């Protein structure tokens, strides 16, 4: 009993200590990230995210490694892609290039807007996943007259990007806006690795097969080793 009490206390102490370091860590790295909703298997949400992405983000940011026709994976037909997502004169087999000229973008914003193909994968960190970061970031803009764009951001101080979605945000309830941003960041998550759902689906079968194989080889091993005394 004594030992048990000691172990429990030690574990409790460790947990508290770990929790404290985690809090300290979160405090030192700006505001904590909100947990983004997981809609990676919700095609309607991903399609809505794709529409928002094409209408608002794709003007300045490219997704230069993702092809328009890849959006068939989230349930669009080629016709729907052309109607809802493809607003330039690009072909449906082309990759998603920004409408803006990079030179001009640099002149306007001071930086070249980064490519967003794998943005969700690159932004993960100690604070959460990349979607958590993007979800928090897109909901943390505030008016700042000192900035040339008139906007600033809690998560990314002095960001060069203005709050592109402000008109949309002001036309929505906070809950609706959160919902839309949730769709958008899940789309970005999907675009970061379009094979991710396929990967997991196949993975289940691979593991089932290997579990069976392990059972068979274990039995086989036993049969052979019976002879060894």
């Amino acid at each position, binding site marked *: 009993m004594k030992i048990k009490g000691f172990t429990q206390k030690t574990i409790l102490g460790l947990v508290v200590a770990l929790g404290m370091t985690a809090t300290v860590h979160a405090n030192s790295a700006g505001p904590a990230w909100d947990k983004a909703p997981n809609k990676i298997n919700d095609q309607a949400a991903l399609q809505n995210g794709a529409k928002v992405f094409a209408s608002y983000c794709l003007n300045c940011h490219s997704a*230069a*490694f*993702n*092809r328009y026709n*890849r959006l068939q994976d989230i349930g669009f037909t080629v016709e729907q892609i052309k109607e809802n997502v493809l607003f330039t004169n690009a072909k449906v087999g082309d990759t998603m290039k920004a409408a803006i000229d990079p030179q001009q973008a640099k002149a306007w914003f001071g930086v070249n807007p*980064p*490519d967003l*193909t*794998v*943005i969700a*994968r*690159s*932004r*993960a*960190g100690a604070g959460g996943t*990349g979607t958590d970061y993007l979800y928090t970031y897109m909901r943390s803009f505030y008016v700042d007259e000192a900035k040339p764009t008139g906007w600033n951001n809690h998560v990314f101080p002095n960001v060069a990007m203005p709050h592109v979605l402000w008109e949309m945000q002001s036309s929505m309830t906070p809950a609706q806006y959160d919902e839309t941003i949730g769709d958008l960041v899940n789309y970005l998550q999907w675009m*970061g*690795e*379009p*094979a991710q759902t396929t*990967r*997991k689906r*196949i*993975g*289940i079968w*691979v*593991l089932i097969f*290997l*579990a069976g*194989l*392990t059972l068979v*080889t*274990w039995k*086989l*091993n036993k049969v*052979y*080793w019976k002879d*060894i*005394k």
Partner: protein
Amino acid sequence: MATFHEVSPNAPIGEKALNWVDNRFPLSKLFKEHMSEYYAPKNFNFWYIFGSLSLLVLVIQIVTGIFLVMHYKPDAALAFGSVEYIMRDVPWGWLIRYMHSTGASAFFVVVYLHMFRGLMYGSYRKPRELIWLFGCGIFLALMAEAFMGYLLPWGQMSYWGAQVIVNLFSAIPFVGPDLALLIRGDFVVGDATLNRFFSFHVIAVPLVLLGLVVAHIIALHEVGSNNPDGVEIKASKDANGIPLDGIPFHPYYSVHDVFGVSVFLFVFSAIVFFAPEMGGYFLEYNNFIPADPFQTPLHIAPVWYFTPFYTLLRAVTAEMMYVLMACVLAGAVLAVVKIKMPALFKGLIVGGAVVIIAMMLTIDAKFWGVVAMGGGVVILFFLPWLDNSQVKSIRYRPTWHKYLYAAFVINFFVIGYLGTQPVSVIAGRIAQLGTLFYFGFFLLMPWWSRLGTFKEVPSRVNFTAH
């Protein structure tokens, strides 16, 4: 020359074909020598699976690598995009790429465990020193292979990791800057660096690696495997000259290995299909940002398998140099006072210590950090001659030796973890203590490995049927 064998004209076609080959190439002979009549100790345990698994991972890396090279572009402007092309547009490209990236980490996991097995059971002791040396060569080649391969995706961590490590070479006195230039082929890491690293990664280093693996196995099969008891099974043989505790590798250990491979593949696939990034340890998040020579990331960390050695590098600060000088001085004084030898040798030791301390005072700490990092790997080569214990296996060593080995493992994890973290005052101090412990463990081994009460080693291996 072997005599020419004839088989009966009525023999089955398979037997005829084998006989035809055997008269021209030692196929059956090789199979017997290395499989069906290679006698391995029957008391192998869990730890003996990692040799076969290393071979498996090597094959995975070579095969997936071949397919990656078909689509990858070693060009600074195209490399990042070509990896994304593989991930998206190449059929099953994502699987091949994840197998290769997970394979790199898996390689180090199995090799570290394989090396630790050798450490525990004294597998490097006479007559297996050359096996160990070839193995250390493999480890070194593997590190070079992994380092150069990591540049190829051309992400931020690829780029800045290579930049930091290649810059280290410029700390070497006199030749350093030219050497760094030679490695990079440019004044900064750039297209030329990417091309030469690609060449080394896909052909030069793998050739060396394969040659060393063959030498490692030939040497092993010449002297025979060690075992958890550290007993030489060839010391007790039956009337036919077969070791009493030996069993044919095939089928007994081949069937064992097939089971081990299944378990390994289960774990490997679980990572490949469900956590290929492994929380940022196998694929670093920053590496999804294309390389940008004008933007240095705030925190540059190598991939996990290099971090213990990266800590050894970072631990050597200007302050730490005084501690190291004191260590050199104390070592020289102890050697002169405690060891009996001619006055000439004593003079040489004192002279050597003075020269080293003079160099430590004049050359920048950064250089000594590089020496520590390199020394951390090179010191492994000397293990067969550092270990003076009476027995091979940890099983028959004094109990406190086990605690010392446990402390070594914990320390290795601690310095490995610290290598992933940004520097801080407390972490820096722990890293320095860890570095002293790491080198102390090996450098003082000739002394401590002799101490304590050893248990009696049995003449035959311990084995319970299962």
